[in-house]
């Protein structure tokens, strides 16, 4: 079976869902004839036309709000925010309207909306996305994990991207769908041939292990896997767990792994303070109280805007490995 890139998996999910259900549509900037700045919507405009693949003026609040209205009318709009960083412009529409409408109207309205958010940088590349700078590199998922009414999904590879996007489109609640844009052209994987839907709310054990649990999201899953492979040679066994969905979080699976290994490292690209790693750590520390042999360590972005250049401001294999060694040494 031939392999697909992460961006191709996204593209396939959109094609399949638009084929399956005439209510599914795409809306965003440059997603039509251009096929999206990253190519995720390539071919959709030709196939489904300008009324279902809607290019809009640069006005993130306006078209996100319009998509919310369409969703309330029973359509299933998939919004592309060109860079996740720009979601700040639409923030009010998401918190004030999308997240609360079901509650506000006691269930008289549903908002089956998906917001696709290309986030982060190429963690494996030479330097980060040099020149893209602090306004085109952020990982803002934690804000939406603290916005009751929103589901938050974050696939780390092509197959999950395909299956989770399909699940998100079919979901009746708004879903913030975070696509790690450094993976678009670098992560590849053979995709299941038939219908492939990955349920929202289920973590995946990426590789099993017994000594340390590494909880990773997005591109940090690849880093963790690389560290796991390297340490296997030393006889250290890492279990890498990818929550895949942050809201609702599969706390049970994370706690089970933590209890099994007794040692936990959490890694994500977003800055540490207030990042979702804190929530995960708090839940594990509470629910696995007395069962851990070492303090939980977090390997996250430094608390600063994402700088250009090659540096340690974002997680890398070295930092993850150091944290793993640290939890192995203590206790």
């Amino acid at each position, binding site marked *: 079976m031939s392999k697909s890139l992460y961006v191709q998996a996204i593209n396939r999910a959109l094609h399949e869902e638009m084929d399956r259900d005439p209510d599914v*549509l795409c809306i965003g900037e440059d997603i039509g004839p251009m096929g999206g700045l990253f190519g995720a919507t390539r071919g959709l405009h030709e196939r489904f036309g300008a009324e279902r693949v809607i290019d809009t*003026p640069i006005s993130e609040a306006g078209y996100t709000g319009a998509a*919310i*209205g*369409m969703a309330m*009318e029973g359509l299933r709009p998939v919004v592309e925010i060109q860079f996740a960083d720009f979601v700040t412009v639409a923030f009010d*529409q998401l918190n004030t309207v999308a997240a609360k409408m079901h*509650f506000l*109207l006691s269930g008289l309205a549903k908002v089956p909306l998906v917001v696709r958010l290309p986030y982060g940088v190429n963690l494996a590349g030479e330097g980060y996305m040099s020149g893209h700078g602090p306004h085109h590199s952020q990982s803002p998922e934690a804000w939406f994990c603290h916005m*009751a009414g929103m589901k938050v999904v974050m696939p780390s590879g092509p197959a999950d991207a395909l299956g989770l996007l399909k699940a998100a489109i079919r979901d009746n609640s708004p879903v913030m769908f975070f696509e790690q844009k450094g993976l678009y052209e670098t992560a590849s994987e053979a995709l299941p041939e038939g219908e492939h839907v990955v349920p929202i709310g289920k973590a995946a054990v990426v590789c099993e292990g017994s000594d340390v649990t590494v909880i990773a999201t997005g591109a940090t899953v690849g880093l963790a896997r690389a560290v796991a492979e390297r340490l296997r040679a030393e006889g250290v066994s890492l279990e890498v767990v990818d929550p895949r969905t942050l809201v609702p979080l599969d706390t049970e699976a994370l706690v089970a792994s933590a209890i099994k290994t007794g040692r936990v490292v959490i890694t994500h690209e977003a800055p540490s303070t207030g990042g979702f790693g804190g929530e995960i750590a708090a839940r594990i520390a509470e629910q696995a109280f007395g069962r851990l042999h070492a303090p939980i360590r977090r390997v996250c972005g430094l608390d600063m805007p994402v700088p250009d250049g090659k540096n340690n401001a974002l997680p890398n294999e070295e930092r993850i490995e150091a944290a793993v060694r640290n939890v192995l040494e203590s206790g």
Partner: protein
Amino acid sequence: MSAPRDLDIYRALVGSRIAEQAIVDLNDKGVLHDHHSGLGHEAIGVGVGFAVRPDDAVQASHRSGMMLAHARGGFPLRDAVLSDIANAYLQFAPIPGRPRVIPIVGLIGSWVPMSVGFAMADRLRGKDTVTVSFFGDGGANEGAVHEAMNLAGARRLPMVFVIENNGFGLSMPASEAPGADALVDRAAGYGMPGIVVDGNDALAVHEAAQRAVDHARRGDGPIVLEARVTRWGAHADGVPELRTASELAQARERDCVRILHEDLIRRGVLDEVQTGAFADECRREVEAAVEEGLAARIHLPPTVLTEADAWNLTYAG
């Protein structure tokens, strides 16, 4: 305009006034809270309400919701009053069997983009409906309103943007807020025509609204309707009024109910007997509704919510 239709409009206007006054009184007495009085605004909701079809999608403002709902035939006076006593949100809720309503939210301006989505959905489904969105002179300052109008203009959607210009955004005089003298001047910047109308003249509002709705339904794209009124009282219950007594008296000089009444009397469409009968009828209906509403008023009891309740209330699955 036909006399029977004018009489219907008058009846809705009188009913709206009496219902509105009843709610204001309950707020003044501290029985209810936080009402944004629509006294003086009635002709806008009523005039527009009579210009749309039940399947058109209409988004009322925080001030004109009850009038619009009543004029569209969705809320008899009883329901209008009850909705304000028990569940204010009902005016803005899409309730099966009632004329089509687009909800609003507690943030001024933030509700407008939603209406653009309704218009887009209707077009996608091949409907010949029109979408109407209400907001105030204050709301017109918000970026979300700009983006919504711009999007409607770019896609030439069948929409009517109704700007209720009552001269104030809370304490901010409209004259100090937007640089322009007339909010309708915004329309040209989005490639739309615009109409300004005296919002105290119900028949003029209705006629202008009908023109606007017809324009949109015909496929000529979106249009702005700026209706000028004055705010009769404080911004909302509990918010102090900064105007002097004489400024307030001046603000109340033009009264949409009196204006239409005089007009209909002059034209012989209405007489004083009928006038009295209408008023009595409405007053009785409203009084009964107030009584019913207060008696049945749901004092939410202390409630224990579980995490599962929270999830189910918040998520649609």
